[in-house]
């Protein structure tokens, strides 16, 4: 098994805004190793979220290849991409994106509906994921009954419950106060260090970025700076 989890080769991404074509990436190359914790910073419109979406198979490059564990994912059809995402990717969003009508436990259970697991096994996994983020006591609460930080921890539990290889985090602390943000970032760091999860985090916050082992700065579709933690 190669150390490289992701290899991005000559990625081009073109959008059409109004009548004007806008090129976000013009030949981007990138490698992400298994177990990396990478933060991606950059101004608005630099392509951070687009890059994250392409890494998660939600978006496709106009040109170029995205290899995941040696497998080209940009050429997969929608159905296969959905399966691939369910198997390998966990998403964490800025605004948590929990289902308001489901309890915390049911929200966490959602990705497990895509796997052939018994109800008992699903329950065990959900309990383990909630315990890992310290929310066992809140399993039966709905999102509206939880604080922002607790909701984000439910979202983290949902992202890790199916044991994915990668966690893709889009501004995971963008909607939280500093103290809560710190808790969330410590959760992510723990997942990276103890469970060897590869984490790719888009953020505007330099403090959040400092939790990553590698910080990349993206501007106009190119990496302009790379900081590696000591």
């Amino acid at each position, binding site marked *: 098994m190669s150390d490289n989890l992701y290899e991005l080769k000559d990625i081009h991404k073109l959008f059409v805004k109004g009548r004007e074509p806008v090129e976000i990436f013009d030949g981007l190359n990138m490698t992400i190793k298994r177990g990396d914790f990478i933060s991606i910073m950059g101004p608005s419109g630099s392509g951070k*979220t687009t890059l994250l*979406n392409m890494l*998660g198979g*939600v*978006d496709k490059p106009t040109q170029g290849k995205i290899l995941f564990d040696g497998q080209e994912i940009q050429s997969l059809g*929608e*159905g296969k991409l*959905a*399966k*691939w*995402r*369910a*198997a390998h*990717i966990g*998403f964490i*969003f800025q*605004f948590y*994106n929990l*289902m*308001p*009508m*489901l309890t915390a436990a*049911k929200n966490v*259970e*959602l*990705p497990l*509906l*895509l796997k052939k697991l018994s109800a008992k096994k*699903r329950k065990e996994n959900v309990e383990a994921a909630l315990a890992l983020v310290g929310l066992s006591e809140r399993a039966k609460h709905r999102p509206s009954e939880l604080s922002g930080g607790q909701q984000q921890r439910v979202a983290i539990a*949902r992202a890790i419950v199916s044991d994915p290889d990668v966690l893709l985090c889009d501004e995971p602390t963008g909607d939280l106060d500093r103290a809560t943000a710190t808790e969330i970032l410590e959760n992510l760091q723990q997942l990276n260090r103890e469970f060897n999860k590869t984490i790719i985090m888009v953020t505007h916050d330099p403090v959040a970025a400092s939790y990553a082992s590698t910080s990349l700065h993206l501007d106009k579709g190119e990496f302009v700076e790379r900081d590696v933690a000591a």
Partner: protein
Amino acid sequence: MNDFYLIRKNLTRNRLRMILNCFAIFIAFLLLGALGSIRNAFDAGVELSADDRLVVVNKISFTQTMPVAYVNKIRAIEGVQKVTWANWFGGYFQEPRNMVVMLIVDPESYLDVYPEMILPDSQREAWFKNRQGVIIGEALALTYGWSLGDRIPISSNIFSHKEGGSTWEMVVEGIFSASNGRADTNYMLMHHTYFFETQSYGGEWVGWLTLTTGDPEKNEVVSRAIDAEFANSSAETETTTEAAFNRAFIEQFGNISLIIQSVVMAAFFTILLIVGNSMVLSVRERAKEIAVLKTLGFPAPRVFRMVLFESLLLAVIGGVLGMLVAQFMVEGMSNSPQIARIFPNLAIDSGTWATALTYMVLLGLLTGVFPAYRALTLNTITALGKG
């Protein structure tokens, strides 16, 4: 948790909207059930008609009479097996509002032509022997609590008795049932000899004749032969099948089936727009959640099915509730003597239930397919990008 749990949770997340949608569907199916039962009641006479029975009426109108001599003339026509005849009495019990359907008949031939009337032999013989005797249908007997041997006064709003008044004393000699549960037994039959002997005016005449051919393929030839026999006479005839006669009788009130169907269709079209619009709105409101599901790895066709099934579930809940309440109402109405006299076969049959279930599925599919398609083709990135 499974997909059905998610569907159920999505359906009930906005309780007020779900209740209002359900109520709209409920009303449509309540109408379908109740009006469908009325249509069935009208249609029962047509459906239960024997296919080898013909009815002969006066060509001018079936309210016009014909000479009683026609009975034997028709009996002599080739292809005719059995003939009977009847007259309308226009009866009521005690008060004009207690209308009783009573026919003046020739007992032996009538029972011969209508073998579906079930009457014990002893009662049959008793009726044949007693001119003052009547036989009553079990539904009618139940309505008025009449039993064998009862003496009952039946009045006519058309004829008068030669001894004064318009009331005839009669004795219940038999209570008949029908071989088919849907057949009407809410009427009674009176001896023609008793009537002819006691009426204050008029001779012997018949309102209509019923005959059998024994083979539906002979119906056409026999009909033409009968009408030809009486062509250019003072009472020309029109011969039709029993089913056509019953249908024409019902259509005096208008095209009931078309009226009912139009009302039901108008209701359904309105509900379709209301529920369809509501479903579109509901899916639009949770575009982001649908995008999250797809991002988590739920395949688009599975999301499509979930939205479609949600709409189906809504239609089935509202529809079944509507039909159950309609069933309850119709059963209640059919137990009322006043309503039973007008609609003796009032009931929601399995055919109406099957139609209702088909409509529920159609309504669910039609109101769900557009929002489900929107969910299927939802642009995940755009939806996730919305605040």
